[in-house]
């Protein structure tokens, strides 16, 4: 079982058809894992081998982070000072001193727009590039007809066109979160495979601030431990029980998860990736001992191991003034207190550590980092001294993987309410990510995704 995967990737120029088939046959459920077509192997290397999408769920305030407006009226400006960065023309707020000193490694887009002001809708649009008018949520689509996440698209493409560096042990799309990505109402419909089915969903892992990693969905069967999961007969018996008592959709979902989990635990190399104790303490410290920080570190390890798409989600653990909700950056109340105490500094620490770590390991050149939320927050301070949802203008941060660093793309108007230059749509975000990772317009046309309305963001690559 150890004669495939990263062992092959280290010692061979590529994975031969024979060895790949051998590896596939060794995996009990490999055929159903990622739709791998063994007839198609390595393709020409794209600029970005992997993507890390750092998703700031809830909608971070652009005025309080990457688009300060020190000359805006009192009701807009906010209390945080604007500071210079290494990038001419780029100021950020005083909450981001580390990133200010690292701005030569990344570029900032200041004119992102979305088409909806709700978390689930905007999140779905933001992660798929499809708006309601494309037949998605609210437009007659919705689950299961929603379009696939950028990560699902890339994973499917790479399953058919593997790069030498791509892992055969690990899923092509991994999302790191404590639970489903959404809001208090429910998950975003665009979190995964959508119309392509659950087989194209991200494999979800939860990473705690201690570095402990778990698979939340496997909790569907009580008492299932890692050792018992490895015992196929035991699991089949459990599945039989579950089949009788669960509805079919739950069972199918779990069955798909189980198949992939079985693959993972069968691989010692894959297991090692999830063990953060292999990292130097100083490295773990640099990311910060929050769920978000350690998840970002785990994401780097996954990229290093050859996972094409990793989504690192802002943890619930730093915004829990309102309990039992997945609000993240949804700072309707006490925006400025939360931003000063936690959100701003923790993002500054973790994102700067991630970019520096990737750079020092020589991974930044081939890893595309994109950090953004589903929208920004109202430039005008609301009637309780905070900020609400604002999809009309917000920011994204881009680094590595073919991105030209040290640039500011786009300009918002005087108060940060609307783009003063060409807006950047979710379809353009997706097109840029996929183009840089080798899912070209031809590939997208074959997969019937992001065919219309999107192009690579001008000036970013």
């Amino acid at each position, binding site marked *: 079982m150890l004669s495939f995967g990263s062992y092959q990737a280290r010692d061979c120029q590529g994975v031969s058809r024979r060895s790949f088939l051998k590896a596939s046959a060794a995996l009990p459920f490999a055929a159903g894992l990622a739709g791998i077509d063994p007839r198609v192997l390595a393709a020409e290397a794209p600029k970005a081998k992997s993507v890390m999408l750092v998703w700031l769920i809830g909608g971070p305030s652009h005025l309080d982070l990457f688009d300060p407006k020190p000359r805006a009226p009192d009701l807009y400006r906010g209390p945080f000072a604007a500071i210079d960065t290494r990038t001419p023309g780029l100021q950020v707020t005083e909450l981001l001193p580390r990133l200010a000193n690292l701005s030569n490694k990344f570029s900032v887009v200041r004119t992102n727009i979305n088409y909806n002001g709700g978390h689930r809708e905007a999140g779905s649009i933001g992660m798929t590039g499809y708006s309601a008018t494309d037949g998605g949520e609210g437009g007659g689509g919705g689950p299961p007809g929603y379009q696939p996440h950028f990560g699902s698209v890339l994973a499917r493409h790479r399953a058919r066109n593997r790069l030498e560096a791509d892992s055969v042990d690990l899923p092509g799309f991994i999302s790191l979160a404590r639970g489903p990505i959404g809001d208090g109402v429910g998950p975003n419909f665009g979190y995964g495979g959508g119309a392509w089915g659950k087989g194209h969903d991200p494999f979800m892992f939860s990473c705690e601030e201690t570095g402990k990693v778990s698979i939340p969905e496997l909790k569907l069967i009580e008492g299932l431990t890692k050792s018992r999961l490895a015992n196929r007969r035991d699991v089949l018996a459990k599945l039989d029980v579950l089949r009788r008592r669960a509805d079919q959709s739950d069972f199918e979902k779990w069955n798909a998860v189980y198949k992939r989990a079985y693959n993972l635990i069968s691989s010692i190399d894959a297991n090692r990736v999830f063990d953060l104790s292999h990292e130097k303490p100083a490295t773990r410290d640099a990311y910060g001992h929050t769920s978000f920080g350690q998840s970002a570190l785990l994401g780097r390890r996954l990229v290093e191991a050859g996972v094409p798409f990793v989504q690192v989600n802002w943890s619930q653990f730093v915004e829990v003034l309102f309990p039992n909700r997945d609000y993240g950056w949804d700072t309707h109340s006490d925006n400025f207190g939360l931003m000063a105490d936690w959100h701003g500094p923790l993002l500054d620490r973790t994102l700067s550590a991630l970019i520096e770590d990737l750079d020092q390991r020589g991974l930044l050149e081939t890893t595309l980092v994109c950090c953004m939320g589903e929208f920004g927050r109202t430039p005008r301070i609301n*009637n309780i001294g905070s900020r609400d949802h604002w999809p009309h203008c917000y920011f994204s941060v881009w680094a590595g993987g073919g991105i030209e660093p040290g640039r500011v793309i786009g300009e918002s108007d005087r108060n940060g309410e609307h783009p003063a230059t060409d807006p950047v749509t979710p379809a353009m975000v997706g097109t840029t990510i996929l183009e840089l990772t080798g899912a070209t317009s031809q590939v997208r046309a074959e997969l019937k995704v992001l065919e219309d309305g999107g192009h690579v963001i001008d000036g970013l690559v």
Partner: protein
Amino acid sequence: MTSCRSIRTAVLLSALGLLALQPVRAAEPQRVTRDGQLKFAPVFIDGGKTLVYSAHNQPKRVSIIRLDLATGKQTLHYPIGSDSQFDIAFSRDRKLECFARSGGPRQLSLVIRNLVTGKDVVFDPPGAQRSTVRSPRFTPNGQRIVMTMNAPGGQQIVSLNLQGKDVRRLTASNGINGWPDISPDGKTIVFSSSRNGALDLWLMDANGDRQRSLVRSSRRDIYPAWSPDGQRIAFTSARDGNQEVYIVDRDGGNLRRVTRHPERDGFPIWHPDGRRLLTISERGGRFDFYLWDTTARGQTPGTG
């Protein structure tokens, strides 16, 4: 109940790494905890023998933790409920406690708890669907509470009585007004305000009169805390580019820097002995309490 027990067990276990308190003899701080959790709003009670603070000790909730500094034992101050509780304050006679509570998804309320009668008074700011209540403090005579509350276009500092009535707005400026602390004699309130752009420290009389600037910088100055003798004010500032803790005399003079570390230091409060300062300092990406001897050598003048 099982959940409560397991949480208590976890809290107690996390205290195993706690260091026994030793006298501070140098400018180097004394580390008080080692759990590393995100924590905030500490308060000394029992003459400095106990520390009560708010902590993100569970994935989806904030709780108020009580730490016995002699034994290192940590317990939940209130039983676990369905809400988050934080920013606790105590009256001098210890008959009253108040804290902020998140009752709804976007609503912060003030709870005034009378330990003698066992009754709670809950104050919800107007515009109840979304509201902000932070940093409550009892006046020294225990008759009123001063705190930060939401207001159109910003946040203001208000005072109210123990029945949650007679709300008086003490600030009425533009911008954010917050983090109030009342002088030991009850006559003066120090707070932070962004009325001139950046968050600066201000003083005002207890009734809101004579609002005047205390210290200014181009970066944020927040979390001011009066010393027990009322002569000094500790606060958090990013004026040197990183978040550190400073002390200034009540007349705005003699500004000096207490902490000096590339990571963050903040949330300062004074030990009742008036000599030591407690901070929550980020070290190696973890957040713990540290005690600093403010009389030791090693402090440096701060920049204005």
